[in-house]
């Protein structure tokens, strides 16, 4: 995409990050991909900008000079549903899960390459797209998921899934590329009281992988985010 070839309704992205150099490369890379960029180095100012500009996406660092990034997520979620992509050097899984549980949509652990970051941004922005309804047919590699008729085929052949296996695949498909936390999946499939019973989920993921021929060592469809959750590998 040419640097100044932004679409007329260019998506606006807010960067809340205290590192000048990170803001810099994000701005250059995002603008080169046709996004419009606004930035802030502090949490409070970031919240103000989010309110004023209603951006399509917020890239948020957790370690901010004034208020903690986790607090920024909670406060944003009090009044808006704008997708939040957390970018942090904190690789501690508990931090990530906490951020996701309090409303962040996805995360990238620093340091990360720009390609990975752009892919995540595309997924989050596509999620926002109202055209993508739950009744469509989603293709993922050789897998075809018909959300309306609740049918899953692989290379044209029907894949027989149990109700829970289908539900898991459906959730991952809707999330397309976005990480879904263990807690989120457990609560959706088994109910909120099972939110801590991760072993149920492991067994279910294992059987689903088996049926769609996915190798956990070199996954084609379901990627394990250790200690956090799972995501469907979106085409990129």
């Amino acid at each position: 995409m040419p640097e100044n070839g932004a679409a007329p309704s260019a998506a606006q992205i807010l960067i809340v990050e205290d590192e000048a150099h990170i803001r810099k490369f994000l701005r250059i890379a995002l603008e080169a991909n046709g996004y419009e960029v606004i930035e802030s180095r502090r949490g409070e100012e970031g919240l103000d900008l989010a309110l004023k500009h209603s951006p399509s996406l917020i890239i948020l660092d957790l370690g901010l000079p004034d208020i903690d990034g986790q607090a920024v997520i909670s406060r944003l979620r009090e009044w808006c549903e704008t997708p939040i992509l957390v970018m942090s050097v904190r690789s501690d899984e508990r931090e990530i899960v906490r951020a996701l549980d309090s409303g962040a949509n996805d995360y990238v652990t620093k340091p990360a390459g720009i390609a990975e970051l752009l892919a995540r941004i595309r997924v989050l922005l596509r999620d926002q797209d109202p055209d993508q309804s739950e009744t469509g047919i989603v293709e993922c590699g050789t897998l075809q998921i018909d959300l309306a008729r609740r049918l899953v085929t692989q290379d044209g052949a029907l894949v027989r899934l149990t109700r829970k296996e289908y539900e898991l695949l459906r959730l991952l498909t809707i999330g397309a590329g976005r990480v879904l936390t263990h807690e989120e999946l457990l609560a959706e499939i088994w109910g909120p009281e099972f939110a801590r019973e991760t072993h149920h989920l492991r067994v279910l993921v294992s059987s689903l992988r088996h049926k769609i021929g996915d190798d956990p060592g070199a996954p084609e469809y379901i990627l394990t985010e250790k200690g956090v959750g799972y995501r469907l590998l979106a085409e990129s």
Partner: protein
Amino acid sequence: MRLKRINWRGVLIATIGVLAAAAMAPILQRLPHANLSLLFMTAVLLVAARYGLGLALYASILSFLIFNFFFTPPFLTFAVTEEGDVATLVFFLVMASLTGHLAARMRDEIATRKTALERISLLEGFNRQLAGAASVAEVLRMIAARVSEVTGKTAFAVLPGAAPGDPPAQAVNGTDKVPGIDDIMRAASGDEHLPGWSVVSLKSHQGRSTYIGVQTDTLDGVLRNLVSGLGNQAIVALDRALLVNDLAKQRMASERDQLRAALLSSVSHDLRTPLASIIGSASSVVELDGSLSQANRKALLEAVLSEAERLDRHIQNMLDMARLAQGELILTPDWVDLRDLVASAGRRLRALPAANKVRVEIEPEAELIHVHGDLIEQVLVNVLDNATRYSPEDGVIRVHAYVSEPWIFIDISDQGPGIPEADRERVFDAFYRVISGDKQTGTGLGLSICRGMIRAHGGDVSAHACVGGTGCLIRIRLPRSPRP
């Protein structure tokens, strides 16, 4: 009956008592014999009560002889003419043995009670003393001192180490050398005799034995009991001291773990932050190759360069920290121009937000300083790095150096948010930032390294509020050397 030695004092008193009765007798001459004999009986009774059976018998025989000599006809002879006098002698003897026996029992009883009472008060006093003991060493010292006091001999108290091979804790009261722990343990188990020492072993609730030794070949029953009594009380205090010890060790271990975790987190944060910029910028250049303007490409590459330099600074800081911690920092002071150091620190920081203006004011007498140049430059880099990081975009950083004998002061102030008074000392703690949540980058190790380096020069560094405004003032104080 205990009559091992003749109690000459008792004999004297008994004799005097009987003689006194005899002397009083003429005054009571008018009374009949039988009543007169009561006078002597009183003397015998008193002697019996005071000195027991032996002297009572002596007193009764003496009384009879005097009574017979002076007061019964024929007077002034020992001849016995009347049968009644024989009866008097027999009465004297019977009374003497009866009362003597009773008196002896009474005395024994009193003596036992007295010992028991003394022992109770001794143990109680010891207990009070032990209540104040905080450490194992202190408890052992108290045991040794008290046992030595009670027995009048050199005494020791030994607690073998927790694991085989650990050195024992021990205390000794007296001048003699404590025998080896193995010898003591063998003596306590009765396998072997330890020449010159008697050993009492006591088991604590935690299953560890403590040994008390007294320098005597035999410890008689009473003393042995007393020593065990003291020991048993001390065991409680010893258990408590051991427990306190264990708790303190656990706490230290957990603090060490926390510090290690903080260090790891700090290292990963300080290294990853510049790496995030480097990888992000470099991958942008690679991925967006075709769509980048010349200016943007240059900006990205400059970011890669400056962040790599920053990474290098962090690594330098970590190495310095390790060297400071191990005491391996060797100073080689020389005369340097402070203006050069500030300029070179500024050059190393050129990559930091350029909008921050640095105003340098160095008074002429503060220009030349006698320091290890590289280290002071590193200090300036760290402090300026912090100042730029906390400054607002258009903030001014002021470096002001001046002399106030016997010091040279270098004040570096920024227009950032400042440091709350409560935290001004803590910012110099290594890893403080990590503990307080990594709201800023690259500050944790930096300031604590500054303090280490400046203190190595005989100076100090402290944080203050800026005079008349917001912001933080870091004051470096260096001793002023006489000019060459």
